[in-house]
Every structure is written in C-alpha cells, then in structure tokens.
C-alpha cells in the first residue's frame, strides 16, 4: 500500500500543500480572503514561470543560475526599447522574450559544445548578463513604461491575475511536452543516464540546448510581466529568482541528480514556499525570518524524501 502510494509522485507534495493551506486558513482570518489569495497567486506566477524552466533543466541534469539575470536583462532591454526608442510595447515585449530565449540558448550551447558544467558556466553567465544590465541602466530604473501592457501585470481574467493565468498556461504546455512528447521523454532519459542516452542514439546536446532556451524564454517572460506589473523596468528584477525555484523544484520532487520529478511538482513546491512566506507576513513576523523558514522547509523536505526512500 505504502509502496503503491509512493509511486504517485505528486501525492506527497500535493498533500503537504493542502495541509499547509488548511493550517494557514485556521491560523489567520486574513489568509482566505480574495485580496490575499490574489496577491499570493500573482507572486507565485513570477517565481512559478522561472520554476517551470529550472525544473526542466534539473530533470535534464542541468541547472541555470543565470535565469534571474536573464529576466533582469530582458526587463531593462524592454524598458529601453519602449521608453528610450519608443517602440511598440507589444513588439518590444515579444522581442525581449526572444532575447531571453537566445540568452538561454547561448548557455546551452556553451555547456554542450565546450562540455562545461552548467553550474560553473551559468555562475559566469549570470555575471555577464547582470553586468550588461548595469552597463545599460547604471542601476537606475526605467520609468514611464506604456500603460498598454499594464494589463499583463495588473489585469484579471475570470477573477484570476493575468500573470497567474499565463503561468498556468505555460505549466500545462510544459507538462504536456515533458510527459507526452518525445523530447520530454528524452529529457528524462538524458537526466537519468546521459551516457546511456547517447548510446541509444538520442540527440543529447540538441535536447539540452532546447531545455536551456525554454528556461531562458520563461525567465524573460517573467521579467516582462514584472515590468508590466510595476510600470517600471527595475534593474533588480530577477535578483531573487535564482535560488527559490531550485528549492521549489526539490521540495516538489525533482531530484538535483536529474531524471525524476515534474514541473507540476515543482510549482506545488513553489506554492508551499509562497504560502509559508505569506503566513509569516500575515503574522507580522519580521520578514528577516522568512528566508530562514523557507530554507528550513527545503532541508525538511529533502530529509523527508531521503528518509522515506531509505525506509520505503
């Protein structure tokens, strides 16, 4: 029975999310209000988009620590195009999302062609993208973003924040791609055993590059949605999107060793972190505690997973 339940991969993290959600409802009367839920959903949307991409890379056995920097670079590039050059905001937005994809693709190509470890490479690339960002902006926010695209950040569809809906749509797309198409299957195979995948005749490098490109695209999209929401292009966008998506993926059952887990699990992991962060705020606890608590949750989640595997 236990063995069979353990095979449902989302059961653990899903149950944990529901439990934390219910406890939060009981703890605070403000938790289950429309206003609060909307805030949480919108916050989850941004970190969630990055998490989808990062979880796919982790499944591939890779990792991109420059996703936050890509988001920031694309955000300010968008601001420069829209405000500095007066380009059509929708066109600019589209171009910047493509720019994010290219940045991701560059990371992937460097990893594949130079046989570099993605951890080391993307630390370096985070410096490159972050540096370009500062060169372009000198650290100053670009204000006066056209109000047209504001709907992307602040609008609602069917009572749900637009970024949240965008995130859900991409989660559905990513899940479908990972589970029901050949490249998705290959991603799991490559993450599980890269040498075997090559022996099988899979195009390992092509799948890896595609993974990096998709993650870069999602990060840039998150950055542009944030620009739309704030109405300014802040150079600091994406600064806090590096580690939480990795933590969320691990909580959600994506092993850092690759080959297991799913984007849906990772999003549930991100939701757990989101709810905990929210309840800490509702309780008026110092925000300085937030990071300590979510860090402890990650450790607990990994410890639980490791223990249950040893006992199971």
């Amino acid at each position, binding site marked *: 029975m236990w*063995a069979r339940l353990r095979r449902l991969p989302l059961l653990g993290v899903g149950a944990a999310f529901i439990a934390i959600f219910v406890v939060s409802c009981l703890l605070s009367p403000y938790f289950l209000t429309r206003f609060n839920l909307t805030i949480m959903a919108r916050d989850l949307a941004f970190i969630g988009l990055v998490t989808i991409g990062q979880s796919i890379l982790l499944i591939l056995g890779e990792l991109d620590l420059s996703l936050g920097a890509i988001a920031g670079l694309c955000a300010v590039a968008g601001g420069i195009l829209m405000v500095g050059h007066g380009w059509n905001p929708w066109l600019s937005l589209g171009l910047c999302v493509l720019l994010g994809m290219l940045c991701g693709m560059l990371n992937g190509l460097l990893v594949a062609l130079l046989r570099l470890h993605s951890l080391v490479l993307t630390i370096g690339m985070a410096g490159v993208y972050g540096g370009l960002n500062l060169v372009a902006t000198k650290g100053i926010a670009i204000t006066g973003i056209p109000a047209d695209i504001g709907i992307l950040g602040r609008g609602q569809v069917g009572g749900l924040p637009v970024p949240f809906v965008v995130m859900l749509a991409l989660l559905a797309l990513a899940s479908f791609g990972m589970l029901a198409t*050949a490249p998705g*299957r290959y991603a799991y*195979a490559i993450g*599980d*055993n890269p040498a075997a995948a*090559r*022996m099988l005749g899979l*195009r390992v490098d092509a799948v890896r590059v595609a993974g990096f490109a998709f993650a870069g695209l999602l990060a840039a999209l998150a950055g542009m949605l944030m620009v739309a929401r704030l109405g300014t292009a802040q150079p600091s966008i994406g600064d806090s999107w590096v580690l939480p998506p990795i933590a969320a993926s691990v909580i959600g059952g994506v092993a850092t060793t690759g*080959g297991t887990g799913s984007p849906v699990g990772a999003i549930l992991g991100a939701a757990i972190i989101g709810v905990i962060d929210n309840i800490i705020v509702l309780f008026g606890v110092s925000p300085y505690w937030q990071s300590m608590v979510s860090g402890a949750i990650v450790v607990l989640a990994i410890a639980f997973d490791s223990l249950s595997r040893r006992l199971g």
Partner: protein
Amino acid sequence: MAILEAAGIRRSYPGVVALDGVDLRLEAGRVHVLAGENGAGKSTLVKILTGIERPETGTIRIDGRDALADRALFRQIAYVPQELNLFAHLSVAENLLMPFGRAGLGVIPRRGRMRGLAQAQLRRFGIRARPEQKAGEIAVSDQQLLQIARAASAREFRALILDEPTSSLTDMETARLFAVLRRLRDDGHAIVFISHKMAEIFDLGDEVTVLRNGRRVGHAPIEAIDAAGLIRLMSGEEVRLDDVVPPATRPGPLLLRAAGLSGQGFSDVSFELRQGEVLGVAGLVGAGRSDVMQTLFGFLPASGGGVELGGEALRLGSPAHSVRRGLVYLSEERKLHGILPRRSLRENIAVSLLGRISTGGVISARRERALTGEIIARYAIRAASPETRIMFLSGGNQQKAIIGRAMAQSPRVLIFDEPTKGIDVRTKAEIYRLIAELARSGVGIILVSSEMEELRRCATRIITMYQGRISGDFPNPGTDSDTLLAAIIGHHPAGPVPVEAA
C-alpha cells in the same frame, strides 16, 4: 571448524521473499561456491553474511558467537563486489591502505612507510603495479586483485566473499586470480565464490550451495555433482546450451566494412561483415575490442579511417546518426551505458521506439502500453509491473529489456559487447538463441566476447585482436583453439604458445 554458520535466514522485501530459510556453513580452508540464477537470492545472502542487512529470522554465528548481537564479528568477513569500485585517481597504495587510521598510519601518513606497507600487500597478492601508480591506470585484472587485497587488508578477515570476480577477466588473468585465491584458502581462510561460469566453479570450488527462488535447493561437495546436475538444480529444469549452433546460412551481401579505422587504443582496424554472419571478436581485456566497436558506432571519436554501412559511408562520431542508419550497439556496461535506472521498465523500452507510437509528436499512451507489453511478453522479461523502475530488475531481465528494445528498432547491424556478462545459464541460452535467430533473419551481428565457449557456439567467423590491432581472422567452426589462442596473445599461429608466469 566453521568460521561462519548461518541458519534459517529469511529476508523479504516489499512484494518478494528474497531468502526463505537458507542455511550456509563456511569452513576454514575451503572454497564454497554459491550458485544460482539471477534473482535467486545470492546478492541478498551476501549482504546478510557481511552484515550490511539484517535477516528477519535466522541466526549467524561467526567463530561460534552470535554475530547479530555482536556486529563487530562481521569485520572478519571481507567482501569484494562485482564492480570495480576503486578510487581511480588515487594511488594504488592509498587505495590499499585507506582508512589510514586502521592501517596504523595516522592523520598525516608518511610516504615511505605507506610504500612499504603497500609493497608487502602487492607482493602477497601478486599485483603487478607500483604503489605510487594511479589505481585507474593499472590493468583491469590488477585492479580486481587490488580490490581483493584491499578487502583483505582492511580488516582481520577470515572469510572472503567474491561476487563474480572474473566477469571482466580473460582466462589467463583468471588463472592468476585463482592462484591467489588458492593460496588464501591454503592459509586457512574460507572463500565464498559466486560465478555463473561452470568451468570456474568446478576448477576452484570445494563445495557448492545452490539457491533457487530464495531457497537452498542443494548443497554438495564439488566431486558429487556435475555441470548438468548443477544447471538442473539452479534452473529447476534442463537447459541445453549445446543445442545452440551457429546459423548455417551462407553469408549474404556485404553489410558493413571498416577500413583502416583508428582511435584511442587501436589503429588500422579493417574487417567486413556480411548479412547473416555472426562475427565473433576475441581478445584480451584491453586489446581494444570495445574501443573499436564504440568508435565504429560513433560513441568514441575516431582518429582515422572510415566505415561503410550498406554501401554508404557512415558519419563517425554520432551515435544518433548510426542508430538512424540501422547500426545499434549494446554495451558491456549495462548500468553505465544501457539502462535509465530510475525510469520504469516501460519507459526504458519505449525510449527508442517513440517514433512508432506517436502521432504528430504526441505519444499515444495506449500504443506505448501495447508495444512495450508485447516486448515484455516476447522476451519473457520478469518484473512486478511495467511501471517498476528498471534498476529493481535482475541483471538478466535488464539485459533482456535492452535486447528487446534494440530488436524492436529493426537494426541492420547489431553489436553485442559481452551480452552474457553476469547472466545466468538459462538466460544465456535464450540470448544465444536470439542471436542465431537474428542472424538467420538477415541482421548482421558482431559479438564481442571474452568467453571462448560463447564465440565457439555463436559465431560464424572469429576475428582476434591483440594490442589494438587485428591479429587474425578465422572461420568457425573449423579452427582449433591453439591457433585462436596464439592470435589472441599475439603470437604467430606457427610459433609456440608461451605460458605467462603468474
């Protein structure tokens, strides 16, 4: 006197009883063979005898004392696993003496003292290596011996358990290993020897215990049993390896030609493969057989020469391209190169066949289940369910899954690299039958093997390799063993065959 006495050992895992009331008695100065098919419970028994796992019921007495109560007694049982797990980048001496504290070397080991201690062990076990050499750089057979030396020197051992120690050794290296083992036995140690190779079992063993489905189905002194009887005990039925003969078809048109192929560890290798042939490739470990095949397939880079497949040049360096052209390679390293350990049996089979079960890029779950179910049934792959992670299957069943996956791709040329390494006799016979069937159906087969018997049974032609070059090309049957052996050890067929000193 019994060094170790295990009685009524029972151990179960979710869904299976791995061991059910097994008794085993290890005597000083005896080699005790543990025989059984894949999945018979040998590995579980070894884990229990070495104290890695606890039995649910049963007793283990070491030196007459209860080892389950006093676990320190398990230190007297040394264990050498099947796979090499040395620290490849550390020196031979460091491998041998770690942890330094136990070897009396302290926190900052002195080089000279380390050298001295290591040298003594190297001499004792007949290892041909210098203490300061990197462990990964010495010969595989010496690595194997080093692993035994390490297990034996790290503790005051009285019994030594070896799990298929010869699976990556050639006959000559095996003889060297056996000489060391016999000396240990004569010094009063008990040896537990696990092997699937009949000749070795009867060569080295003093007594044999046979496991089948977690039960002890037989125990006898080695003189009281013969190979046929042993196989019958292990499988519970008659398995006749002799039934398999090389396919007697006439070779068809040319399928594959390697011309002057060169790469890491070999150079100027040329041979041809015709339709319906089973081309055996013989040679010592390190002769470059796997390197040639992996280069041919595109997994390793080629430095010169070319390969033609079906009359057209093959682009080297890309396994993906080779597979698309119908050239499939099944590696000797099942765990490293064959399986996706954490994925299910179903996914492991389907991963090469997605083109056949998807429409417009979308995989049909129904067709996937049907196709993988068919392959599981056809190759009699035994698993709790198609959703079981493949790493939980026995080695034989993993191998059948890999072969089934390769077959379903309808390859034109299939390269088997040591396909029966670590595989029990019954599955071995099945694999031989499959090879013959495939050849008859027109697939070109290359069979790399260290077992002369295997090549003799399956191949229609045998090429030999010595130190990275082809040293001979012989018809099979029709060549005597001395001629083959001479080519394998690099001597002209006419010359005498010297026996290397152990």
